[in-house]
């Protein structure tokens, strides 16, 4: 009975969604064949190729060729730190969101909740887990496995701690999460003394992306406020800045940063190449953030500002406590979208010759044992996969956030 019911159900679904009429059936056959062919090609590529070149160069892909030996602990410690902080953050958020129904809070220390925690984590982060599993299976590295397990355990314990924090501490947890990458960078750069020029691979682009977002966001808010200002000088300067950086391609700006900036500074003040790239990313993205924030400011009813004025609040308090929090909330998805853009833009460090994953990918194929075998398809695929997985995960999170905030549905 149930089996029959399911069959008719499935049959009806197939008829409704795949073979409604003749035209539909043709489309189904054509696209079915196309999808099957592409899936077959993709699978035979991933499973059929000899990934030895990527296996031997995995460490280079992740942190660059210059970091080795005990220095490898620097990025590992950074990852652990960030994992723990994110765990605390998620726990604290979970607790504050279910403040009125404590039973719904997922506590990692209660085995009854493990299944649900695992289920939700995998549902949200499966692309990242897939990448990690791929890397671990490929390299077969026990150290890698232990490092990964330790990071997961830290996130787990962090979440347990986050759930136990007092209710009002979400913003402190958020601050700690934001500080964790900064501390990680400081540990790698100064704790282990790894020179900026030695950063490479995934570590370099992750650093450039994160630093770019963190630095350009405040600058962007400042520019957006400037553009909306009634003071002609502030407005003029902001508009000139924003339109210049939005009108010129990032490639050109990076080339300027690489070849021209040095002419504008005294020799002793010229930063190293990766830092110059980060500065350019910051200046560039700030112009785009400014436009996003301006959108948020314009979406706010004027009554908010007028009411605050009527209460006698001084201007800077109106901006920082009334206007900005609401305006930023309205554009969170656009902010995430802009961050994804910046993440993708970090690949442009290829053009100025930095040890970014794409450049490393072509460097691997020049190693003596792999030279001239056309292996660049493999290494480029892996580099692209890293970029894709991070931005795909971020874009899924942004869509989730959009649904949760109900933006566009009011």
């Amino acid at each position, binding site marked *: 009975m149930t089996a029959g019911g399911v069959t008719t159900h499935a049959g009806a679904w197939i008829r409704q969604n795949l073979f409604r009429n003749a035209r539909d059936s043709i489309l189904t056959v054509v696209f079915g064949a196309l999808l099957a062919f592409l899936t077959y090609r993709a699978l035979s590529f991933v499973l059929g190729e000899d990934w030895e070149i990527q296996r031997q160069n995995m460490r280079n892909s992740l942190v660059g060729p210059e970091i080795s030996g005990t220095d490898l602990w620097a990025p590992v410690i950074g990852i652990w730190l960030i994992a723990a902080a994110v765990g605390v953050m998620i726990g604290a958020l979970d607790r504050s969101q279910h403040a009125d129904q404590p039973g719904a809070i997922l506590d990692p220390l209660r085995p009854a909740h493990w299944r649900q925690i695992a289920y939700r984590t995998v549902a949200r982060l499966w692309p990242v887990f897939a990448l990690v599993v791929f890397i671990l299976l490929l390299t077969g590295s026990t150290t890698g496995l232990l490092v990964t397990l330790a990071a997961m355990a830290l996130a787990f314990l962090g979440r347990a701690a986050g759930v136990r924090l007092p209710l009002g501490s979400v913003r402190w947890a958020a601050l700690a999460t934001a500080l964790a990458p900064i501390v990680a960078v400081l540990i790698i750069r100064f704790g282990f003394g790894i020179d900026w020029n030695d950063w490479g691979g995934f570590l370099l682009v992750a650093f450039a992306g994160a630093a770019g977002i963190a630095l350009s966001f405040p600058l962007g808010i400042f520019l957006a406020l400037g553009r909306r200002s009634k*003071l*002609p000088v502030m407005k003029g300067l902001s508009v000139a800045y924003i339109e210049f950086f939005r009108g010129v391609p990032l*490639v*050109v700006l990076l080339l300027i940063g690489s070849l021209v900036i040095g*002419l504008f500074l*005294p020799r002793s003040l010229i930063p190293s190449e990766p830092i110059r790239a980060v500065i350019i990313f910051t200046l560039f993205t700030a112009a785009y953030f400014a436009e996003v924030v301006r959108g948020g400011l314009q979406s706010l009813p004027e009554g908010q500002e007028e009411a605050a004025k009527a209460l006698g609040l001084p201007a800077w308090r109106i901006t920082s406590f009334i206007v900005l929090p609401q305006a930023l909330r309205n554009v969170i998805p656009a902010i995430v979208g802009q961050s994804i853009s910046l993440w993708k833009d970090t690949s442009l460090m290829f053009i100025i010759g930095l040890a970014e994953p794409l450049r490393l990918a072509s460097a691997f194929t020049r190693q003596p044992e792999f030279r001239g075998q056309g292996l660049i398809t493999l290494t*480029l695929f892996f580099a692209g996969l890293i970029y*894709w997985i991070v931005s795909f995960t971020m874009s899924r999170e942004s869509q989730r956030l959009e649904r949760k905030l109900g933006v566009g549905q009011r």
Partner: protein
Amino acid sequence: MTAAQAPARARPPLWRDVRVLRVVGQAAALVVVGMLLAWLWSNLQNNVDSLGIPAPTDFSYLNQPVGQSIAGSDLRPTQSRLDALQVGLVRTIQIAIVGIILTTILGVLLGIARLSQNWLVATFARIYVELFRNTPPLVVIIFIYLGMFINGGFLPRVGDAVEIPNLLAADIRGISVLWVSFTDSPWPYLLVLVGAIAVGWGVVRWRNHVQDAQGKPTYPMLSGLVVFLAMAIVGWLALGGPTELSAPSVAENGRVTGGNKLTPEYAALLIGLVLYTASHVAEITRASIQAVARGQDEAAKALGLSAGQRLRKVILPQALRVAIPPLSNQYLNLTKNSSLAVAIAYVEMTRVTSDLVANGAPAFQAFLLLAFLYLLISLATALITNFINGRLAIPGR
């Protein structure tokens, strides 16, 4: 009396007077920015002096000979650097126009497919969008160029060219496609074509008008197309066949002859830009269609319009209005992203500039000029968009 009782309104002290503070604050901002710029400028002059390179205002380098040729162009090494830059500018604009046309076609189709009731079609479009939207365009371009064309075996060696007879032939030197070229001056026939488009468009308007007035189907698009084709064919015959088809073919020795040859660099750049930007255009199309109120589609259905008619006459025109600002943004992005050509050695505006700088042109002036040219392109795009937006906006909203 009341006036006497009210205390005279004293002006607040200067440091608390908003009017004064505004002026002072803005003056201070100007001074700070001015000082920063002056400092940078003086550094620039010091550095330029100590390095012995031309002064930052000296653009005479543009008149010097390039000293090298550009692949696929008839620029001679004796021509000036300005001429080289012009070749680059034309190529940037050309790849932008071709790219925008192809992106629009692919992106709109994908956007519509994304909303298809056929599950497989919708899934295919969704996978496409998720795949390309989240991959950096540089990765797409380099993967196509190095990973597929140069090393991946997609393009065979010289002497082993593959072909789709009369349409396409390819080897590692390039992809040749079927192309129409003019036997002599193209202008007479182009004028005929422009006239045919104008008359055909007039017929469409007229048949539409009749259809609206009489309520009977008059097939406006079809009749317009027939008139256009008739004029185009008659004109072609009258001018004695001014065009000739150049079909690519693989000769006995396995080499490609005929057709229009696209170098692997150009093809990779174009395909990469189109594949990447189309994923964004698809999302814009989908969102714009979804932004059209449901009632519009239902009302059109109630009037008895077919699915195609509803899409063409009711949904898409309204969706277009929503789509234009983000679309123009994507077109501008595509244009700016054409500068990614530097990574694969396709010579356009950015590559010309960086080559000039590598060959001794002063970096500051060269890149200033390049940034200025891109700003001009951005400005032109913004003006065109505003014009179209103004024409399409619903009056009174």
